[in-house]
């Protein structure tokens, strides 16, 4: 194999830093969107449209070049644990979740970037270098989560940096700092994973049997994510892919198929020029063989 994806993180110079991440515990998200605002303010992310969508309280719609935190709102006629919703003769629950770039262990955006603009930082995060990016847009369809986008105004790719500029100062990212319920927790990834396991057990015990972790498993298709979640329903309900796989996992096989096709093309041309296939006439002068 021409390359080994498993090395991508282990080989990174970390300058003694541990890999950091987000644990977004959606069970205590109250949908205040403070994270969206804090992110916009700190990172100077431009306005992304002021539309009324009718999708519950969500007018942000999804992550893009100009939206780095997105709070999803899902209304369901299903019970939340053993809580009485008190809205007449029906069950009701309102799920909220703040979505963000997953800072994948095997990040497709980074793999396919042809300029080296996207890179792995010493904190194990994935960041775009705006001054290097030439706006080819390849990272956009490569991301299995639909996170990264190409910004209209600057022509270059943009996404969450996990506040790369705050980390050296010992500050946590703006969204985690502002989250009033600690739904967004920032820290050492290994520690967050342990905390998430404990939290999952707690929430399940309290009656939320549908709770599950998303992105915490280092053996999943993207090698685990740096930003992972505690969800109360299937990932697709929140607009997340249920089983994302980094596209470059199949790249060695893609290259092999391309190689065979290229050789076949040359052989086909040779056969057409020298061979007697098909209608097999003409070529009067200088036929070799």
């Amino acid at each position, binding site marked *: 194999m021409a390359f080994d994806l498993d090395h991508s993180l282990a080989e990174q110079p970390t300058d003694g830093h541990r890999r950091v991440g987000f644990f977004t515990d959606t069970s205590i998200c109250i949908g205040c969107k403070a994270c969206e605002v804090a992110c916009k303010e700190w990172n100077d992310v431009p306005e992304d449209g002021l539309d009324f969508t009718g999708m519950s309280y969500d007018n942000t719609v*999804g*992550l893009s070049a100009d939206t780095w935190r997105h709070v*999803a709102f899902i209304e369901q006629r*299903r*019970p939340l*644990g*053993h*809580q009485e*919703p008190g809205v007449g003769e029906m*069950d009701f629950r309102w799920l909220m979740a703040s979505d963000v770039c997953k800072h994948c262990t095997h990040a497709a955006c980074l793999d*396919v970037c*042809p*300029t*080296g*603009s996207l890179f792995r930082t010493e904190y194990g995060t994935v960041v775009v270098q705006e001054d*290097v*990016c*030439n*706006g080819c847009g390849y990272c*956009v*369809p490569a*991301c*299995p989560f*639909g996170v990264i986008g190409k*910004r209209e105004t*600057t*022509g*270059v790719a943009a996404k969450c940096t996990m506040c790369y500029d705050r980390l050296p100062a010992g500050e946590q990212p703006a969204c985690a700092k502002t989250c009033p*319920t*600690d739904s967004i*927790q920032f820290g050492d990834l290994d520690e967050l994973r342990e905390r998430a396991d404990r939290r999952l057990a*707690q*929430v399940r015990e*309290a009656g*939320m049997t549908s709770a599950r972790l998303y992105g915490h498993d280092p053996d999943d298709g993207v090698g685990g994510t740096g930003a992972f979640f505690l969800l109360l*329903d299937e990932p*697709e309900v929140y*607009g*997340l*892919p249920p*089983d994302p796989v980094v*596209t*470059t996992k199949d*790249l060695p*096989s893609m290259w092999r*198929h*391309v190689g065979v*096709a*290229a050789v*076949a*093309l040359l052989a*086909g*041309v*040779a*056969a057409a*020029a*020298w061979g007697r296939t*098909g209608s097999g006439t*003409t*070529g009067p002068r200088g036929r070799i063989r």
Partner: protein
Amino acid sequence: MSQTDVRMDGSAETRADREATPGSAGRRRERLVPQSSPADSYYGRPVLNEPPWHAPDIAGYLFLGGLAGASSALAAAAELTGRPTLARVSKVGALGALGGSLYCLIHDLGRPERFLNMLRVFKVTSPMSVGTWILTAYGPQAGCAAATDLSGRFPGLGRAAGVGAAVTGAGVATYTAALISDTAVPAWHDGYRELPFLFAGSAAAAAGGLGLLAAPLDEAGPARRLALLGAAVECVAATRMERRLGPVGEPLRRSVLMRLGEALSLAGALAGASMGRRSRVAAMAAGAALLAGSACTRFGVFRAGIESANDPKYTVQPQRRRLAKARAELT
């Protein structure tokens, strides 16, 4: 234990913090829970972000790159078998298509002036990076081959460049399959086994079409045969891909452009191999049909991919099936 439940009694001793457990307090009145299957998506919104590529630029490049690469290969074969006119038109056509390719590629960039940033790195994980280097190797050779042929100077150099352009040209014509497959776009990614052959066939048909269009009848034999071969490979690869992909292949199977492309390619190839052997006009018409067919196929593949990215079901359902299968194997 702390709670988040709204309390009518107003007591606030228990502070809600990150240990708060929703749904843990209160008593729900007994009622039936409707058994509904979970939603497929978030308000029907796509999971993936749409590729920011413009169809005329990128689908246009898929076509022009294929035409350039395969034409260079045809030119070298024609030159080595003593068909100077076919060689010349193919070389000039390849150079023109290469020019168009570069225009499309650079025009589609958000920051065209930073085009050369592509040459900062070589990354085998990025087909765009590999493709840039293939083009960097191919371009000068294709240019040299055409220039020496037209000027009649340095024929030895021209021949060497022509062979070089043929070899690298085969890469130019096929790497674009990896380029679009190496994405999360369901129809493109999942088709990675057949796409290189589909693109090689489509490129061969286009190069054959150009030869039919521009070369005299007595030299166009290889072009006719290449067109026939290319069109056949293109159709077989497309059919196989559409079958193998199952539900994800739906946008491909539905694509009017792809059907049109196949029809034009096959008609052009057959007309070229029959009437095109005697009549110059018929040969030209067949060549034009082949070129149009190849372009339609590329735009069809491009559009079908975008369609598969924009509908969450093509992302979610195969992944769900994959998970279910993995779970079934575990138990």
